[in-house]
């Protein structure tokens, strides 16, 4: 009786054996030492400047260039034609019967602009806008005619005719673009003067006379705005203007150095006179300023506070190229100026106080001063600084946003026991650098530094020709591990600080075929599992 039970036991044993064999194997942890490349690249000074502000010359020497317009004074500044408005009204004094088509009102008027010492005789209008408002209070339509006798286009006078219905108003706009203005008045001997006329009649289409009643009224308002001349001539007067210019400069914005010794530079200040009038220029002050550090320096040069006379431009009477400008270049060198001081403080703005006097010798052109639109009195500063520099103890600081995502479970970073990030630098610049990287919190408080002590990155040596033949290798070890990760998690900013020293006693050359090749290698001891 017991036998049949045995196979059941076999079955149970089979099941238990089978199920008990299913075990997930969880291997032990062990530690491995790994060398893994993380990143690589090249740092070149040229990368830090806008492309248009840096170039390499035939010998690959880097140059910083900038061209800034310090001042530009045009027609609008010197001799702008003001907006003006003419308000005219006519009230019928007595009751009178008048036929259609016969003017019952006629007015010829001269308007003289107040341009102070400027005495313009002719102008060509580039842009303008004329608005005419007409009001008719009688019971018949009226034909108004408005004309500017001084304005002609291809021999035709500017003339507007408008029908205003009975007891109605009318507003219309026109332009004088392209019209030539004769500003000598009705007699042709005056200046700054235009001649306009206005007449009104019962519209000729009417068939019956109109009986005017004493007190009937007509009102006209003529407004001229936004006159931009293409060309003006006359006498521009003897006027003096003081300009306080403030020009932003962004060429150095990407270079986070605080100061450097620039030993060679080519800076010119070009005064360009495109106005047909003599000028006297006095640069009272030219100063550069770094608004971040507050550092500033004023230019010492013979041009400062010395009057410079600039003869008038020449009218070529060719509308495609109407003016021959008169230019004068002022050259700044380390021998005649201290401009290097202005550049070395890494300026982000230039400030200039300029006094410009027009026609200092009076009306020697006999009223033939001229100016064309777009041909101004300008002062350009052109800068070309070959990067032949000497730097001793120059501090370079750069702070950038930083966000560290802390190692999460199953993240390989979470398995690191200890190790370092090795920054391998192949420096082809003849500049030593002592580098430290600081961790800052959101309030810029110092948390820690990445390096136990500042690391020295050796600069390469130049040969007699100022050329680096062999790169200098340095390895900066950045210790990493869980403690650092904790600090990085609290870090909001990374501040890189470098103290730069050019190699040797002389100035060194920064070339665009040089650079610092960097390779970041993780040298870590890590667990195979969390």
């Amino acid at each position, binding site marked *: 009786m017991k*036998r049949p039970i*045995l*196979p059941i*036991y*076999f*079955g*149970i*044993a*089979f099941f*238990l*054996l*089978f199920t*008990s*064999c*299913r075990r997930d*194997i969880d*291997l*032990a*942890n*062990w*530690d*491995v*030492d*790994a*060398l*893994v*490349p*993380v*990143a*690589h*690249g090249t*740092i070149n000074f040229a*990368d*830090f400047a806008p492309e248009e502000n840096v170039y390499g010359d035939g010998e690959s020497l880097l140059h910083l260039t900038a061209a800034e317009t310090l001042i530009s004074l045009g027609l609008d500044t010197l001799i702008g034609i003001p907006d003006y408005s003419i308000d005219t009204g006519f009230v019928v004094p007595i009751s009178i019967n008048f036929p259609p088509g016969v003017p019952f009102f006629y007015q010829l008027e001269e308007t003289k602009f107040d341009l102070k010492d400027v005495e313009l005789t002719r102008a060509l209008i580039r842009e303008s806008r004329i608005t005419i408002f007409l009001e008719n209070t009688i019971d018949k339509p009226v034909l108004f005619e408005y004309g500017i006798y001084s304005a002609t286009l291809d021999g035709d006078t500017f003339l507007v005719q408008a029908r205003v219905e009975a007891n109605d108003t009318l507003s219309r706009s026109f332009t004088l673009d392209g019209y030539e203005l004769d500003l000598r008045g009705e007699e042709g001997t005056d200046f700054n003067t235009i001649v306009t006329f206005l007449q009104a009649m019962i519209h000729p289409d009417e068939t019956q006379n109109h009986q005017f009643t004493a007190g009937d009224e007509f009102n006209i308002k003529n407004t001229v705005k936004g006159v931009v001349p293409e060309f003006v001539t006359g006498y521009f007067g003897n006027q003096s203007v003081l300009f306080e210019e403030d020009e932003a400069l962004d060429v150095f914005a*990407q270079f986070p150095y605080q100061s450097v010794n620039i030993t060679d530079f080519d800076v010119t200040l070009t005064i360009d006179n495109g106005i047909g009038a003599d000028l006297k220029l006095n640069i009272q002050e030219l100063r550069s300023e770094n608004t971040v550090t507050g550092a500033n320096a004023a230019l010492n040069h013979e041009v400062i506070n010395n009057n410079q006379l600039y003869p008038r431009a020449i009218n070529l009477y060719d509308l495609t190229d109407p003016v021959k400008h008169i230019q004068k270049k002022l050259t700044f060198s380390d021998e005649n100026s201290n401009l290097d001081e202005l550049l070395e403080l890494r300026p982000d703005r230039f400030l200039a106080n300029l006094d410009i006097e027009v026609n200092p010798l009076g009306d020697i052109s006999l009223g033939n001063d001229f100016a064309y639109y777009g041909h101004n009195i300008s002062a350009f500063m052109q800068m070309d600084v070959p990067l032949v520099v000497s730097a001793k103890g120059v501090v370079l600081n750069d702070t950038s*946003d930083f*966000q560290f995502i802390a190692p999460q479970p199953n993240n390989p970073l979470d398995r690191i026991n200890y190790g370092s990030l*090795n920054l*391998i630098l192949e420096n082809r610049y003849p500049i030593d650098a002592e580098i430290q990287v600081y961790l800052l919190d959101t309030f810029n408080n110092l948390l820690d530094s990445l390096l136990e002590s500042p690391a020295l990155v050796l600069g390469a040596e130049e040969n007699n020709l100022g050329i680096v033949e062999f790169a200098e290798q340095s*390895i900066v070890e950045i210790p990493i591990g869980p403690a650092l990760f904790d600090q990085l998690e609290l870090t909001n900013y990374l501040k890189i600080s470098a103290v730069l020293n050019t190699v040797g006693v002389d100035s060194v050359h920064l070339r665009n075929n040089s650079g610092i090749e960097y*390779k*970041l*290698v*993780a*040298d870590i001891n*890590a667990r195979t599992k969390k």
Partner: protein
Amino acid sequence: MRLAFLISLVQIVGLQIHAQKPVSQNWWKGSEATSFVSLNAGLNANSADFSNRFLSELIFSDQLSQEVLNDELKGLSQTENVMGLDYELALQGGWNIKSGAHTLLFKAADVAHVNASVPKNAARLILTGNKSFAGDTLDFSGLNGLGMRFQQLAVGWQFQPTPSTAFFALICFVNGEQYADAKVDRSWLYTSVLGDTLSTSLKGGLFISDTGNVGFATHNGAGASLDFGFHTEFQGEGSIWQFDFAVNNLGLVQWNKKTIGYNFDTNYTWTGIEIPDITNINEQFADNVLTDSLGGGVNENIRKQTRNEWLPGYVAAELLQRRDAGFETGGGWVLRWNANFDPYVYLKNGYRFNEHIATHLSVGYGGYGTVQVGLSGIFEWSHFMAKAEVRNIEALALPGRFAGGSGIINLSYMF
């Protein structure tokens, strides 16, 4: 109680003992053909190159100690370090037809096999990392491995023309559950002195059955195999000599078209993420997807396909003296295919206490190891038979030198 003890013993042994020799048993159950039911269980793990000390720490502890790791690396062969694992759990039976010479056989089995050959350099790379090879090129070609788990349902027939002779044959349907086959013919890794450059070259292939369909008896392939053999006895030297010959798992599995295949033949150099613009590091790190030409090369060659793979079968023969009581001697050999298995030969000597109980000590050489020592015991009664065999005693005695342990349990009930 004794039976319960035996069942418990089976479970414990099934969990913890290991068997070197393949598990399946011969079907001969004695001088008279009879109906029977058997339970066979065995787990085999063995390697002459790795050690029990290392493997047990690797599998059962939380931390692999540096001392064990270093000792293990010292003992590895430069070119080939083989390890193998076999597991089988089988319910077998026979139905003797009309108490005659013919017996209908059946078998249901769950089988797993894993083997791997690891060059020393590959083990060094995995266990110590690449730092110690800075400035050098590490060649770890020859890494390969095979893993397979399948279930078998078999029917067969045994013919016992005389009490001492039996022939058997079974045809098995094979359900392929899980499969992985990797072979790296060429592989090296160069690490520059400073670690700023890693270069590698890989050539080989990898096949894995559907990774989304896992679990006991899931169907990822199908196949068939044959088991056949015979048992005979003859007189000599005043005793009976029993000779068993068996061929097991002669067949193959076709893994279905969801099997993932990779073939790779690529060289790749990694120098880190290139940062063209140092002033904008964060975005460039973010934009850099860490794919590389190696991954690309592999991905291009990934495909899904059917794949035929021979089962890791074997052919075995054993000659064993049988006395009523007293000392017995014998020996045998095992050959395997598709299993990374060297020919295994052994001598077997023992003592039979009476017709019911005998014990044998075997000493063999080959397989996944070198010298291997085993101990077996047989308990035979008219309706019940139990065999237990423990091998790789050398690995238990010298855990720092050998790895493995093998065990077979065979319980049979004859009606």
